[in-house]
């Protein structure tokens, strides 16, 4: 145990990573605070960002010790979760149905293909206009982003299942519903999780855009507000906050995937 820890600490990779990050931060500091290069004048330096981020009395009013910071996070996370949950439930079931039934596929796939190339963000104006309330419009845009990725990957997942599993299941006396539960659902799980992973990434991006354009609260909105109020420190600290949240949510999906797909994890372990 100790030796492993020691190996970790003396690992050149970790050292190099630290050096890499240090160089990046130093350059940032050098350009903004020391050299004051022309285009960098307005960009806050890393120390100012950190100070503001971890201050008890931030100039911008938003730091890890203020309630409003967590309120912003809560708004954004709440919207993303709601949209993502909806996209997962609808997207996975639609994808599975499309993969299961040829007829259903023939009828629905053209419509999916018709709507899919439209970037989720191009829905914003229409969503604000016709949906009741801005809140629902933002959630809708976030939902659309994850939805198509999920449908498509689920469908791919069903198509990726080895034909022999279907034949074997029928040989063993399965009815269609048994095939669905015992072959289609577990067989497409790996792809479904890839889809969720991708969908989550696009969701966050669309959420930020939605909040900037139409939102009233949330991280994206606060970033844009910071820009107008000349509080550039919290623009940057919020960007990193978004990065961290994005990272955590995709890690959570990975963890859930491992949990649900024990057979995959064990294979890798073996």
């Amino acid at each position, binding site marked *: 145990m100790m030796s492993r820890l020691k190996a970790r600490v003396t690992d050149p990779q970790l050292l190099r990573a630290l050096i890499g990050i240090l160089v990046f931060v130093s350059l940032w500091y050098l350009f903004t605070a020391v050299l004051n290069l022309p285009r960098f004048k307005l960009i806050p330096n890393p120390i100012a960002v950190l100070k503001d981020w971890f201050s008890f009395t931030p100039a911008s009013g938003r730091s890890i010790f203020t309630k409003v910071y967590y309120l912003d996070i809560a708004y954004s996370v709440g919207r993303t979760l709601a949209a993502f949950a909806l996209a997962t439930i609808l997207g996975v079931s639609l994808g599975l149905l499309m993969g299961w039934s040829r007829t259903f596929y023939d009828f629905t796939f053209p419509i999916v293909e018709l709507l899919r190339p439209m970037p989720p963000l191009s829905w914003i104006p229409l969503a604000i206009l016709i949906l009741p309330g801005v809140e629902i419009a933002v959630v809708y845009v976030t939902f659309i982003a994850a939805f198509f990725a999920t449908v498509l990957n689920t469908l791919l997942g069903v198509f990726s299942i*080895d034909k022999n599993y279907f034949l074997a299941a029928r040989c*063993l*006396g399965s009815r269609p519903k048994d095939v669905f539960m015992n072959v289609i659902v577990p067989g497409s799980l790996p792809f479904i999780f890839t889809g969720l992973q991708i969908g989550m990434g696009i969701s966050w991006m669309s959420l930020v855009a939605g909040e900037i354009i139409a939102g009233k609260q949330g991280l994206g909105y606060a970033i844009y507000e910071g820009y107008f109020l000349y509080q550039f420190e919290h623009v940057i600290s919020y960007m990193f906050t978004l990065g961290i949240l994005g990272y955590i949510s995709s890690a959570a999906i990975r963890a859930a995937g491992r949990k649900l797909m024990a*057979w995959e994890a064990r294979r890798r372990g073996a």
Partner: protein
Amino acid sequence: MAAGAQNNQGEIFIKNVTKIYDPEGVHVVAMKDCSFDIAAGEFAVIVGPSGCGKTTLLNAIAGFDTITSGEIYLDGELISSRDRQIKPDVERMVVFQNGALFPWKTVMENVIYGPVVQKRMKRSEAVDAARDMLHQVGLNGIEDKYPEELSSGVQRRVEILRALINKPKVVMLDEPFRGLDAVAKTVMHEFLMDIFCESPRTMFFITHDLDEAIFLGSKVIIMTTRPAQVKKIVQVDLPWPREHHLLGSQIYLDLKREVLEAVHEEAKKAFEAGEREMA
């Protein structure tokens, strides 16, 4: 179902079967006027060059695909013809070439899948039956493992057990031991031999390995290259249960030479045809 009754079941007649594949307008005559019979409880081994339509027959008997003309009967019942495609069913069980154990189910869940999904046994009964079977062949202790944690030899044996627990009339095996090394193959042969001798049932076994074919089969059916027909049927009159020292005997060597020559001729033809097709 009594063991005695089984022995009289699983008789297959294949009559003038022709199969034409017709993808995108290039018709391929995979099989033409192919006829042979397999008696109940017989271990029939089919050998022949790749793409000679062995799998065509398997698909037709299993009910996965249709044939273009001809008839196939199982115990006097027409199961496949131009207008008839029987549904896949537990009485005609298939063990697939690359293995089709469900990777997302443990060994136990895989083996009991058939009886439970057919509602033929209660879950607990099926578990007991499966445990007995695994125990009998020395595979206890792996019930809770996933297939991909096991060596491919064990996977194949589990898959054969998953088929047998349903007590099918016919077991069809499509090159089940492909890719195993020599040692593992020998084990599989012993395993299959034990199972077959204990309760003989009709076997439809496709392979490329001639030693395997002669060692296991009560008759070896050699197919021609496309369009496939029966080239030769070699009766293997070696005593049951077969044992390994047979492999050196003169009668075995004579059989092997006979099969080898017939197969080699067809393999060469198939090879040359393949090269021509690709050019």
